């Protein structure tokens, strides 16, 4: 899932202070699970902003609400008209949600209420770890299921570098060295010899470096378009 984390109230205040009527709009999927932007946190942010406004002597109305997801229109469309009653929507969805909503609220701005951090797992309640970078070309089969792109601070494909220290990465004692984990894991799997091969430079064009990515599924689109009357049932376009 997508993991988010809270922004400081100072930053949120700087963003919102010139608006009169603000809606903190929670997203009840990924960012709720990581306690960053679900309805509960939306309420917290709304309260903090009202308190800040009072401290600053500014009249500001701040409400909150939430929907299941900001990244699919069916979820927020039913409340779209309500959203438009505000001067600003502070979306606590991930950046995807903020972007997506921004295109659809007419002249009402949508600002980010949280930071979108990474794709992560819940290692323990309240602990979220980045495990994938969404590079678009998965090589986990080569690395014992441990991603060097997301988890090695240098995205090395032929690691480890010389910085591994007692199994930790050179950047911090609190960060595991991904390549240490890979080697140990592959030892356990009995596939260490796979690492002997030098991995050639990667093609990063499947990653962000290839520009914004899009996946469009023929079979789903065909159905949708057929439903919308854009193509005939046999599949040929009208």
């Amino acid at each position, binding site marked *: 899932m997508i993991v988010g984390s809270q922004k*400081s*109230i*100072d930053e949120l205040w700087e963003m919102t202070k010139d608006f009169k009527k603000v*809606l903190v709009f929670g997203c*009840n*999927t990924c960012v*709720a*699970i990581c*306690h960053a932007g*679900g*309805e*509960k*946190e939306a*309420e*917290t942010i*709304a*309260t*903090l902003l*009202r*308190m*800040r406004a*009072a*401290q600053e*002597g500014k009249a500001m*109305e*701040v*409400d*909150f*609400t*939430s929907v*299941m997801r900001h990244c699919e229109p069916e979820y927020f469309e039913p*409340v779209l008209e*309500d959203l438009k009653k505000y001067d600003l929507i502070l979306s606590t969805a991930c950046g995807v949600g903020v972007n997506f909503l921004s295109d659809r609220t007419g002249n009402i701005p949508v600002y980010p209420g949280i930071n979108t951090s990474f794709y992560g797992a*819940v290692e323990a*309640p309240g602990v979220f770890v980045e495990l994938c970078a969404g590079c678009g070309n998965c090589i986990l089969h080569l690395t014992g299921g441990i991603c060097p792109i997301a988890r090695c601070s240098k995205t090395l494909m032929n690691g480890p570098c010389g910085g591994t220290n007692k199994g930790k990465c050179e950047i911090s004692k609190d960060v595991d060295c991904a390549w240490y984990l890979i080697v140990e894991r592959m030892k356990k799997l009995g596939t260490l010899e796979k690492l002997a091969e030098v991995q050639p430079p990667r093609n990063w064009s499947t990653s962000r470096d290839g520009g914004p990515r899009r996946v469009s599924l023929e079979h789903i689109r065909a159905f949708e378009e057929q439903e919308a009357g854009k193509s005939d049932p046999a599949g040929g376009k009208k």
Partner: protein
Amino acid sequence: MSGASTIEKKGSHRERAAALKETRPYSPCRAACPVNTDVQAYVGFIAQGRYNEAFEVIHSVNPIASVCSMICHHPCERACRRCGVDEPLAVRPLKRFALEQSTEYRRNKRHLIEKTKGKSVAVIGSGPSGLTSANDLADLGYQVTIYERHPVLGGMLAAAIPPYRLPREALKEDIDDVVSKGIEVRTGVEIGKDISLDEITSKHDAVLIAIGLSLSRSLNIPGVEGPGVLLAIPFLEDVAFDRKPDLGKKVLVIGGGNVAMDVARSARRLGVKEVEMVCLEGADEMPAWKWEVEEAVEEGITISHRWGPKAVRREDGRVKGLEVVKVLSVFDAERRFSPTFDNANTKLIEADTIIITIGQMSNISFLKDSKVKVDERGRVQWDPKTQMSSAPGVFVSGEVVTGPGSAIAAAASGHRSAMAIHLYLQGEQIEGSLPTYEKEKIADMPATVAEKIAREPRMKILHLEPEKRCNTFEAFEYGYDEEAALKEAGRCRGCGGGAVVDKNKCMACLTCQRICPYGAPVVTAWSEIRPEYCQACGLCAPECPGGAISMVSYDVREFRETLPAIVGSVDPNRKEPVIVAFLCTHHLGTAGFNLPDHVRKVPVHCTSRIDTNDLLKAFECGADGVAVVRCPGSSCKYKGIENRVAARVGQAKKLIGMLGMEAGRIELLTTDAESGSPYTAVCAGFADRIKQLGLRSK
């Protein structure tokens, strides 16, 4: 609407939750109650010191609430899930407490109800069943006339149940409620004698026969005719209407049921030193409630078990005693009543007066020649699906048709009949539209949960000492004082009042499953909170990131909604800091809240219900400091909530820090639960510390 979710909410939480609650299995106490009184809800209100709201919960289904608070046989208590832990909750005494606390409120509420329906209903008989029907019909806007042969209303409650158990003031409260709605009362009018049924049916659009069982059965044994042998109901009526019968030195009561107990104990109170009871059953088979037997024995009444009456022996016409024969068995193999006797084994029990208490029947002689048919066994013919007799527009309710039972069961029958009459008069179908009180209840408490519940003995109910109470018809039971009531209310596990998930908001994050101390939630596609596990602590609700959990018994956002009113306006020139104190009510309810005005008190069922957002809200409303005061961990009603509460307080400290406020403005404090005013010292200390920090300007 500022500060709220834009999703509008209508009405109070209780109103909103009521619908939700209906979709869920009932708590066993509620399911066991013949009118499904929401015990968990009113006990919860009592625990928070919200007695008037407790009254509303009770009274919404039970017009004879005060009566029940004194004499109900309380099936709720036998069903209570605490039975599996230690002892059942003292539901009836708590009801009494709530009613006593809300008397003024209740009286002030009484008012005439407009008769909007333009139709009139006659109710014959003013026992619990007739009263309940009259009450409901008046509420619906009908003109109601009660016909009662006795000089007062109340049926057996007024005419038979002795006042030492049911003080007439209690009964009067219930009756006044009903009568104040604008009901015509015709006491001292016996149908069939003073007015004919035909006259009644012609005068009213519908008639309800709720005449109960007003005749006592007698025995067909030699010597029974003549002075010195009395029947229970006439005897009890004498007692009730203060016509002191002459009983001699020794009274023998035949029978082993509850009525027999009332008879014997009334005889004791009439000054008879020697009262003996004789019954067919052994001590463990007696139909009377165990507690009634114990109380009778305390009062010096003796009981001869397993003897059957054979003949009344007289000397010069005066009763000498009762000849009894040994009982071999009372029930047959199918547990049907079918006594067998050892005719060789007889004896004489001496007595001056013998009172026969072996059952009641109804007096339906006035139905002769009417359209209301009577069956071959002398009972009114009726259809339980419509509550109607064989005559259209003539309805029945209560014991006249159901046979002997409890007052509250008669009231339940009254509710059904009122609805039936209403539907009939509105020309609507009755069958299938009457209220039923058979409801699915939540399963037994799993052993894994029961283990985690602290043993807390039931609060004792005190009685007037036996020597004293034998001399008076005054009530012999003391009600709980506030401290005892609050402690007892705190024992309730809130079954069925716990967490429910709004599936539209749940994203299956597992938070609730992870934190529930009782393992209630099971998250698959969404969270399903198993009511038999849930203890309604509320720990999960504030933690749910989607705001998907509400508690049936309280609104998760209730604090936030009420805080502005609780804090009120904050004087900019104040000398004392405004403290918002969230106070655990578990041990003392609101009774220990002897705190100065500047401490704004927020009673909480358990601190586990407090959300970080509640703490922020308190500051938003202008608090200088916010205290969360919990009971010591050892006496906490729930297991394992401390760390969670501490974490929320910690989070709130961090958040107010972002606004430049000192972390010290929020504290998690522990009270001394055993002290009489446990919050005074902790709150004063906290207020001092806040004063040091200074008052907030904005």
